[in-house]
């Protein structure tokens, strides 16, 4: 009998069928709901069932009920100790520390992200980085030395980069929804890079929302009695600060709606991100951001980048640009 190491708290009841099989995961689907049966290298996630060892090809059926799940008709109880709580948690918040830690994440992503990822958006010359100038870095007609670049990375990728950069500029300095639409569905990967970026953005919005919640609960001096702008919050989040939760959620939901497409994988990940549910690797990073431990922040960032070929780095890029937009 195989051993279940953990199961995500967002797994929903249903009778699932095998959708696809990868090296370290079997993807089950029921309607538009996914459950991913994965090995330890992938690790816990909102809708992941982590089993011990290599994912066995002998898993043929999966049924999730209220009180248990059945794999190949063998019943496994939902032991509380093995439940993975995928919700983003912000328990401590110090604005200076958090911002400085985000800078460490950004440096690590710039240095170590795979070449094909969207981390190029964060380099200084692109002006989108946390440290970068607040000027529009991209002109639509700026196609100078592109021939060489096209030979290096290919015409498709070059054009995708151009579009994604334009979308990121919109997200950062203009209309978020327009930017999200410009980026969605673009790029390589089973979940296209642009979609991973957008799910990172949704995670950032959730983090910003929770930070504001903690700040108002605990009366953190950095926020107490301040207007949104001076407390490092932009207008959208300021609405939340004014107890207009519906509106803030509304923006997040508009982003989610704009980011959704017909790729079922993308939609599953976007839904989790919109609800503030993240993979273990990302949750650990968010936890590390709240405390002073540079090595742990770097390690956690690198761990997120092990997700997929570029998915982790793309999500982190979206996350960092989202944090820059929503948390100064």
């Amino acid at each position, binding site marked *: *009998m*195989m051993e279940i*190491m953990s199961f995500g708290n967002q797994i929903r009841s249903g009778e699932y069928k095998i*959708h*696809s*099989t*990868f*090296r370290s*995961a079997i*993807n089950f689907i029921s309607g538009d709901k996914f459950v991913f049966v994965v*090995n*330890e*290298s992938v*690790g816990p996630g909102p809708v992941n069932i982590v089993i*011990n*060892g*290599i994912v*066995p*090809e*002998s*898993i043929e059926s999966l049924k999730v009920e209220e009180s248990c799940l059945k794999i190949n008709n063998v019943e496994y109880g939902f032991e509380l100790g093995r439940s993975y709580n995928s919700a983003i948690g912000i328990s401590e918040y110090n604005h200076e520390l958090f911002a400085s830690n985000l800078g460490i994440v950004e440096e690590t992503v710039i*240095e*170590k992200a795979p070449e*094909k990822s969207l981390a190029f958006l964060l380099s200084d010359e692109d002006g989108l980085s946390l440290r970068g100038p607040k000027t529009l870095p991209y002109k639509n007609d700026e196609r100078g030395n592109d021939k060489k670049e*096209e030979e290096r990375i*290919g*015409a*498709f*990728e*070059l*054009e*995708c980069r151009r*579009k994604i950069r334009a979308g990121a500029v919109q997200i950062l300095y203009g209309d978020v929804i327009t930017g999200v639409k410009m980026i*969605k*569905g*673009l*790029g*390589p*990967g*089973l*979940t*296209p890079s*642009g979609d991973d970026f957008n799910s990172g953005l949704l995670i950032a919005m959730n983090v910003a929302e929770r930070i504001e919640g903690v700040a108002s609960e605990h009366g953190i001096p950095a926020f107490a009695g301040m207007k949104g702008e001076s407390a490092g919050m932009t207008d959208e989040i300021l609405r939340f600060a004014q107890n207009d939760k519906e509106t803030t959620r509304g923006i997040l939901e508009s982003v989610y709606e704009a980011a959704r*497409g*017909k*790729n*079922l*994988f*993308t939609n599953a990940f976007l839904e989790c991100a919109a609800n503030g549910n993240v993979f273990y690797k990302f949750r650990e990073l968010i936890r590390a951001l709240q405390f002073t431990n540079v*090595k742990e922040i*770097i*390690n956690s960032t*690198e*761990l997120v*980048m*092990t997700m*997929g*070929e*570029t*998915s982790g780095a793309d999500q982190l890029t979206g996350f960092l640009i989202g944090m820059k937009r929503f948390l100064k």
Partner: protein
Amino acid sequence: MKVTGFVKKGEYFDSVSIMLIAKQVAAIKGVIDSSMVMGTEENKSVLKETGLFIPEFAEAGEMDLIAVMKTEDKTDMPALLKSIEGLLKPDNKSKEDNNFNPSSLEGAVESLEGANLAMISVAGRYAGDVAMRSLENGLNVMLFSDNVSVEKEIELKKYAKEKGLFVMGPDCGTAIINGVPLAFANVVNRGNIGIVGASGTGLQEVSCIVSNAGCGVSQGIGTGGRDVKKDVGGIMFLEGIKALIADKGTEVILLVSKPPADEVIEKIKIEVNETDKPVVSVFLGSSPELLKGSKIHACTTLEEAALFAAALSSKSPVSVVEELFVKQESVNSEIAYREAAKLTAGQKYLRGLYSGGTFCDETQLLCKGKLTDVHSNTPVGEAKKLKDKNKSEKNTIIDLGDDEFTMGKPHPMIDYTARCKRLIAEAEDPETAVILLDIVLGYGSNMDPMAEVIPVFKKIKEITAAKGTHIPIISCVTGTDQDPQNRAKVVNAMEAEGVIVMKSNAAAARLAILIVDYKGKYK
């Protein structure tokens, strides 16, 4: 130029596979440009804008994979498409594979009668429990995983000792059991030298030197580096010694480690007093004084220890080894003088870029008394800690396999990317006098390291030629001619590019140090 492609419907490939296949497609002769992307409307629109769209793609949905290639006119399109279809097959093949994939440890034990060792390579937080279950199932354990707590390691090792089993690890990268190389290990001759190693690269180096000297290895028992530290107390290192003392196939015992805790050394001394078999040790960085009064023949480098063990194994006088070193010193001196003479005034420093941590330590220790201002990301002896691991300072010796470089990435013995980048950076530094590196062959390591480093060596030559300078590149190649990569082939390829290849890391390090030393003295 022609554009061709196809749509894969109803088959799914994870992103890593898609990228790997895309890379392979791009390398096919005749392919000028290519992409492998999901058929989202946005991606299709980009394909149109870039002239990579063909009518067949119109029907592709967001869950379908589009493969597109722009090729030279004369390319044989059917053959190209067939080869790409071939690349897309392996991922799905596993479903048809008849190999039995047991779904649990117990299932694996049942399905493979006589199995007595579990090799564990899972995320650290699960690895300890899996190891315990393996022991409970009567299996010895090789625990490749790291990030297992020291408390768990002690618990596992105490339990294993009670049951008469071995726990090699955690973080045990190398072992050779009954002639079978496990994880990062080499294909070495079988023979009468038994090795206990708390250092993976160390165990690889000594076993290869022994084998290349015409002798062989009975067993190579890895323990994981933490075993010989105070907390664990050498539980498995001592069990390994006991096993080799009892093993009829072992006539010489060779012990390899970074410095064990003083109390562990005391226990080792007591343990080896129980045998008539000769015992040779290399505890890199440990004071030889600690072994005084014991029957252990203490050596200072991996090469020295391996050659002493080989001499004892073949019943040759140990003076043969001393003679060999004298000869080597004279040859080194000649090469060093020649190479130092080619350096410019500004070229002053040694830059060692290692994939093996033990080699990095060994080289730093060999610098003692010869070079000052030695820096490392993992300093030992008199070396100082680098301020920034990515930037060399004066004499710098780096372990690129250290956690801070490898977290979430393949080890540099597998993936040369980081080291290749650093090699170029060092070549561009006007203060670099000598580049020193290791190439580690064998199972687990990169199967074609020359494909990675030869272009870099060529690039370095271009860089230095443009500046009118010369940088000697010195390397050791840890491996044997029986390794899948074939040591002789690798050495020949490197020498053809002007690299000076030495027989061991110690020899390579000594030469590199000598060049820098001569440069300082004579110019």
